[in-house]
Every structure is written in structure tokens, then in C-alpha cells.
């Protein structure tokens, strides 16, 4: 075989071009992010890291500290649960408002058209606003407004997850068969009645399973929000990190992992029972 022919790779040029393009695009990023791996190995920072990581083991297991961790764990679970209760209170009514199939003015021309529109558009906007600002930012704002502690976490989860639930609930309601509810509305049923008898029975399992999944996310989120002072396990972890107490940090990290696994199992069980 001709050796020159054997080594020819028809895709080499485009592949090379693509790689060069990516590198050229990424290049300014390295300076923007002050990318400097060498700084990790400077004498001073290396001493801090080695000292900090060295204290990760053994885990801190004093009775007093474990009691504190247990208390924070319960607090985290309570923040997630109370936050979800708030989120449902916020998201549920807004979902009913923005669901198109539940609109009476949609059926035909009538006096309610402008009124319906003037409620539905702000509701849609509110949902988008609630969920587009990340929960950590909401937590940061609420910590400034109501003070350090779990109340800020509960409110932050309530607002962010309220926005998400409202959107997803209304999507679930729309994605099911909407003919029963249309029939009820067209024969003169009220919105609430049409929802209760035309949508609720069909959509319930899906709504419950999504809410349970969101609760699981809320557990994780409430740990993270603790870092900005919204209570629970995260706040405890932030304190231990600030004191460079590695043993405490690793105990809390382990607790966090166990908590996530457990929330996973509980949510799987709940979804199985309710479906």
C-alpha cells in the first residue's frame, strides 16, 4: 500500500480548526479568571491547605458537636418542609391563574377578556421573576430583611420554589387531557368546580410526584443557603470552615451526604405510595 495514502486522515483539518477556535475563544477567559495554578503551590497558601486538609481526619465526634450537628440537620429538614409549604401556597394559586385551559374568556368573545388578561400577564411575570433569581440570592436578601436564621431560608425556598411549582403545575395541568375541563366550562361550570372535577383527578399523581421531587431539591438547597446565613447544616459548615476546623467540616460533609441519600429514599418511597 502507498504509505502516504495510509496516513491520510480526511477529518484532520476541520477537527484541528474546531480545536483552535475553542482555544482562541477560551484564551481571554484564562486571564479574566486570574487562572494561576502556581498560586496553589505557593509556600503560604500551601501551608494553609496542608494544615486544613490534615485536620479533616479524624472526624470530630465529640458528643457535644454531634448534638449540634443533629440539631442543624433537623433544622435543615424543617426549613425544606416549611419552605415547600410556603412554595405550594404561592405556586398553587398562581398556577391556577396562568393555566390557559381554565380560562373562561378563552371560550369566546365576552366581557371577561381584558380582566382575564390583566390578571394572567402579571401572574406569569411574577412566576418568572420568582424563579429566575437564584435561591441563594433570595436567601441573601431575606437574611438582610428578617435577620440571620432559618426564617430567611424558609422564605427564600418559598419564593423560588413557588415560582417553579407555579410554572410546572400549570404545565402538568395543560399536558393532561383538557377536554373534560373544557366541557365543564362550556356548559357553564365555574373555574374552581371545573378544576376540581375536570383536572384534579387526572393530574394528582403527577403533581404529587413533582412536589415530592422538589422537596428533595429543597433539602439540598437549604443546606447551601446556610452558607449565606439562612440556618441549618450549611450555616454550621460555614462556621467550621471559617475556623479552619477540618474535623468538623468533614463530619458535617458526611452528614450532608447521608441526608441527601436519605431524602432520596424518602422521596422515592412517597412517590411509590402515592402513584
Amino acid at each position: 500500500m502507498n504509505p502516504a495514502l495510509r496516513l491520510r486522515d480526511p477529518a484532520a483539518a476541520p477537527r484541528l480548526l474546531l480545536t483552535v477556535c475553542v482555544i482562541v475563544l477560551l484564551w481571554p477567559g484564562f486571564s479574566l479568571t486570574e487562572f494561576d495554578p502556581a498560586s496553589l503551590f505557593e509556600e503560604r497558601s500551601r501551608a494553609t491547605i496542608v494544615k486544613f486538609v490534615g485536620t479533616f481526619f479524624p472526624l470530630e465526634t465529640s458528643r457535644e458537636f454531634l448534638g449540634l450537628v443533629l440539631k442543624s440537620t433537623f433544622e435543615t429538614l424543617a426549613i425544606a418542609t416549611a419552605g415547600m409549604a410556603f412554595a405550594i401556597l404561592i405556586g398553587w394559586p398562581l398556577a391556577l391563574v396562568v393555566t390557559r385551559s381554565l380560562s373562561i374568556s378563552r371560550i369566546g368573545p365576552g366581557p371577561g377578556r381584558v380582566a382575564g388578561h390583566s390578571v394572567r400577564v402579571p401572574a406569569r411575570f411574577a412566576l418568572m421573576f420568582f424563579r429566575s433569581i437564584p435561591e441563594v440570592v433570595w436567601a441573601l436578601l431575606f437574611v438582610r430583611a428578617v435577620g440571620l436564621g432559618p426564617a430567611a431560608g424558609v422564605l427564600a425556598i418559598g419564593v423560588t420554589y413557588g415560582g417553579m411549582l407555579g410554572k410546572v403545575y400549570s404545565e402538568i395541568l395543560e399536558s393532561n387531557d383538557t377536554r373534560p375541563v373544557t366541557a365543564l366550562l362550556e356548559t357553564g361550570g365555574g373555574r374552581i368546580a371545573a378544576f376540581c372535577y375536570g383536572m384534579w383527578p387526572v393530574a394528582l399523581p403527577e403533581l404529587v410526584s413533582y412536589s415530592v421531587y422538589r422537596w428533595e431539591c429543597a433539602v439540598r438547597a437549604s443546606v447551601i443557603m446556610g452558607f449565606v446565613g439562612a440556618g441549618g447544616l450549611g450555616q454550621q459548615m460555614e462556621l467550621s470552615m471559617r475556623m479552619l476546623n477540618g474535623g468538623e467540616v468533614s463530619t458535617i460533609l458526611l452528614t450532608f451526604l447521608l441526608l441527601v441519600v436519605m431524602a432520596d429514599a424518602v422521596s422515592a418511597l412517597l412517590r411509590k405510595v402515592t402513584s
Partner: protein
Amino acid sequence: MRAAHWGVIAGLIAAVWASFAYLALDLVQLLSPEAQVQMWKYVVSFFPPDVSADYLRRVGQGTLETIAISAVGTALAAVLGLLLALPAAGRFGAVPRAIARLVLNFLRSIPELVWAALMVIAAGLGPFAGTLALAWHTTGVTGRLFAETLENTPSEPASALRLAGSPASLAFLYGTMPNVVPQLIAYTLYRWEINIRMAAILGVVGAGGLGQMLYFSLSLFQQPQAMTVIIAMLILVVIVDGASAWLRKRLAG
């Protein structure tokens, strides 16, 4: 089944009640008229947002920094993820496979924000800490996704090359890679999308970008400046959402 349903409902109500009781949340105090006035004053103090040219330029700089953190973090994670995916897909035997999977699970199960707090200790305040934090967590995610892709790809092309006498490395590059590269790129872009949103908030623990600006301005009680940063975050999120939805539609259709 009915009884089970009622049991679940009763359990949920009890759980919510217990949560409020445990947190000792004083709803009456939280919703009292004085608290409402306070809250309203706080909300009003955010308006109007600071739109002076100088501050807008700084916010623009922060936005660029956020995008750079996410892009570099994701790129690093794609490279590291691929390196770890090879052993994790069982290319070098059972023991390296188990070890690589353990490492990936560990990297993945620690949230980005916790990594960021750790990296701020290691690398100091600033965007470099955020980049490293995103890179660690995302390596755990992409490594696992890449490993699954490698495991699921047909082995015939590589086997054919091996049987024709090519070395293992070339068989991998020319027999396996062309099949998996589109999937790897898709996963990387998908994580990049998530990481842009993440990079915007990592700064609240001091890891650079828009989050750090927000944290500073809130700490200094400069609410108008904070509002500008929040608006920038909102715009960034909406643009990323829109772009990804548009791209997905185009690529699918």
C-alpha cells in the same frame, strides 16, 4: 389504598406543623404591620437601580468574569472528566474502574458552593477559586456521563481496527472517538449552561463574578447597586435559557 392516602396526608400535615414548631417561626411577628413597613422600606431602597456609566461598566466586567469562570471551569472539567472516564468505563480493568468511580462520586456529591468555599481557602478570594470549584464538581458529573457514553458505544469499529493490527491508542482514537464525540460535546454544552447560572452565584462565598459584587454591595448597604447586579443576573439567566431553548429546537428539528 384509600387508608394509605389518608395516612400520607395526615403525615404531611404533621410534618409541616412540626417544621414550623421546630423552627419556632413567628408568623404573626413576620406578618405584623411594623414588619411589613420595614420590609416595604427595604424593598423601596433598591429603587432606582444604579445605572451610572461607571457602575454599568463594572457590572459588565463582572458578567464577563462570570461567563469566563463558567467557560474555563467547564472546559477543565471536560478534559479531566474524559481522563477519568477512561478508567471509569473499565478500559484499564476492574480495580482502576472502581477507584475512578469512587473519585467521580466524591467530586460530584459535594455541591459547587461547598467546593467554592473550600477553594477560597486554598486559592484565595477571586474568580480563580470559582473556576476551580466549578471544575471539580463538573468533573464528577461529566466523568460519569462520559464513562456511560464510552460503555454504551459499539465496540465493533475499534475491534476491527485492532484486528487489522492497529495499536490500542489508535483504535480508540479512530474507532471509538468519532462515535462518541458528538455526545461528549452535547453533554459539555449542557453542563456549561448550568454552570453559567452557578457561576453567577458562587461569588457569595467570595469566588468572583457577579455574585461577589452582589455580596459586597449588600454588605455595604448599597441596595441600588445590588439591584443593578440582580438585573444583570436576571438578564444573563433569561438569555442563556432562551439561547439554549432556541439551539435545542434547531438541533432537534
